[in-house]
């Protein structure tokens, strides 16, 4: 199995986003800009602005990276409004002069104002419940409960201390290569839940075990938010998501049976095939111009 593990390590390193990578430098400079905009708008306010998400957890991969910027107002701070919804909307307004802001459930996605190019940055406004222990509340737009309790430190430590970050990165690559959409947060929790007692095994053994569990037991696996046991994740880890994961896990196991790991993760360095949105757009336009008469989609 050592050759398979060597291959997986090479895959990991080819998808790894190092701290000095060009992509990271770009988002980091954008982060400084975001921080300045917010602090200029609320110069006297007590705000903590820091990194969260996969950057802080060290589970970033090249194919699909986002930088979460947490923007938490302190518990007694109301310069951006009294309610969580006020904070969310005021931060959105404040960033809208410089960015095209796409609202997500609890975060604000930043894109270029002119060409809508994605900066891969999510700003997450919120308010500390108690700054000392890190507990915070977020606004949830359009959700049944408009307030969500969270704790970024608990999330970060839970994943970082799991010693499973390499497997998580590989599973993120696998998820992207199979064209499925599952919240990274859920995939991370799922990985830790399934593999927490198998940290010392090799990458290939653990991947195989994970996929076997997905194929045979996914319906019986529940994931819990370590920072908030009341956070119901069943709507983002629903039957349709489970069905997709079960299917691609089965396909991955078939590939393993044929000893064809390249069919799962591709060739080393083949991620250079991936392009940014502007290049993709041009390529599709060129394809469309030579495609002739093509079916136009309809809807019932």
């Amino acid at each position, binding site marked *: 199995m050592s050759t398979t593990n060597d291959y997986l390590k090479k895959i990991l390193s080819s998808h790894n986003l190092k701290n000095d990578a060009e992509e990271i430098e770009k988002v980091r400079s954008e982060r400084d800009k975001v921080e300045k905009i917010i602090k200029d708008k609320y110069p006297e306010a007590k705000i903590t602005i820091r990194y969260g998400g996969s950057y802080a957890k060290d589970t970033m991969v090249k194919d699909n990276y986002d930088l979460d910027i947490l923007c938490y107002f302190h518990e007694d701070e109301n310069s951006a409004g009294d309610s969580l919804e006020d904070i969310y909307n005021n931060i959105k307004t404040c960033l809208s002069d410089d960015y095209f802001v796409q609202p997500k459930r609890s975060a604000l996605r930043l894109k270029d104002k002119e060409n809508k190019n994605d900066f891969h940055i999510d700003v997450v406004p919120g308010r500390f419940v108690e700054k000392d222990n890190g507990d915070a509340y977020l606004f949830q737009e359009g959700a049944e409960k408009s307030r969500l309790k969270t704790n970024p430190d608990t999330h970060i430590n839970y994943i970082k201390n799991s010693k499973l970050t390499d497997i998580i990165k590989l599973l993120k690559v696998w998820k992207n290569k199979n*064209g*499925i959409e599952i919240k990274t947060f859920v995939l991370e929790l799922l990985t830790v839940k399934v593999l927490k007692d198998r940290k010392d095994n090799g990458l290939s053994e653990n991947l195989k075990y994970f996929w076997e569990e997905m194929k045979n037991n996914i319906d019986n696996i529940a994931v819990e938010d370590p920072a908030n046991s009341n956070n119901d994740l069943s709507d983002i880890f629903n039957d*349709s998501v489970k069905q997709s994961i079960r299917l691609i896990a089965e396909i991955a196991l078939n590939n393993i049976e044929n000893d064809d790991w390249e069919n799962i993760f591709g060739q080393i360095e083949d991620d250079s*095939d991936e392009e940014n949105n502007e290049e*993709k757009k041009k390529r*599709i336009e060129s394809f469309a111009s030579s495609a002739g008469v093509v079916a136009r*989609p309809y809807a*019932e």
Partner: protein
Amino acid sequence: MLNSNDNIKRIESDIKDNLVNIFPNYKLTLRNKSLLISGVLILLVDNKIIDRYLIEIEMPDMETRFYPVVKEIGNKIPKIADRHINSNGTTCLFYPDNYKKYYNRKTKLSEFIKGPIFTYFIAQSYFEITGVWVFGELNHNEFGAYEFYSQKLGVKDPQAITIFLNFLLEKHNIKKNSFCVCGSLKKFKNCHYRKLIKIKREVPSVMIENSVKKIVKFANGMKDYINGQNKLKEAIAQIKKNNDPFKKIFYNENSATKLLHFIGTKFPPKIYFKRKN
């Protein structure tokens, strides 16, 4: 037989021989007598990967389903009509009555994947980036049915289209030597007759029947819309003329629409105003 071993082997070798680069990971299953092919479609253009989608293809039985039904099962595309996808993930690749252009008994699955499935997902990825449908789109539901047949027959009047389609269903007789319903002043046999016979050969009656229902609904909706517009104009004119004390409240289109509802006129669904690219 759809589910016979021979057929399954034929499909497998077709995929292996013709789709190795764009559909390398797949699985064949039988579910409720249906043959399903699930796998990852790689949108490879000029050796560059544009995107990946997890899809499920249900093969047609050619009795109740005449072409493969394709679902996006990776949850990448929001399941809303504006994305040309149903809430259960079924994609709307083309107007159903047009299926023979893309699929018949002799069509290989690989041709169907490389054709309308591939371009549908290319269009989805382009829409995700730009908000524009790169190959254009048909409107939804009744409007889409009207739009499809209107373009196919080169006729704008929904009533004329309905008469033509009812002729195909033998519910309306048009004599070959009478003037054509389209208003061209040509004889029917020298105008739309041949086009209609071609449609009859291509489209099963059950589909035409379904389209007629939609086009009638569309025409009724348009009637309501035109009546509504006229009533709206009259109502606004009346308010202006009488210097009505409610003028300030109703003197804008939104309030006037509310007024229109108030006086009991149906307003057409928003779908009729859908922007076309």
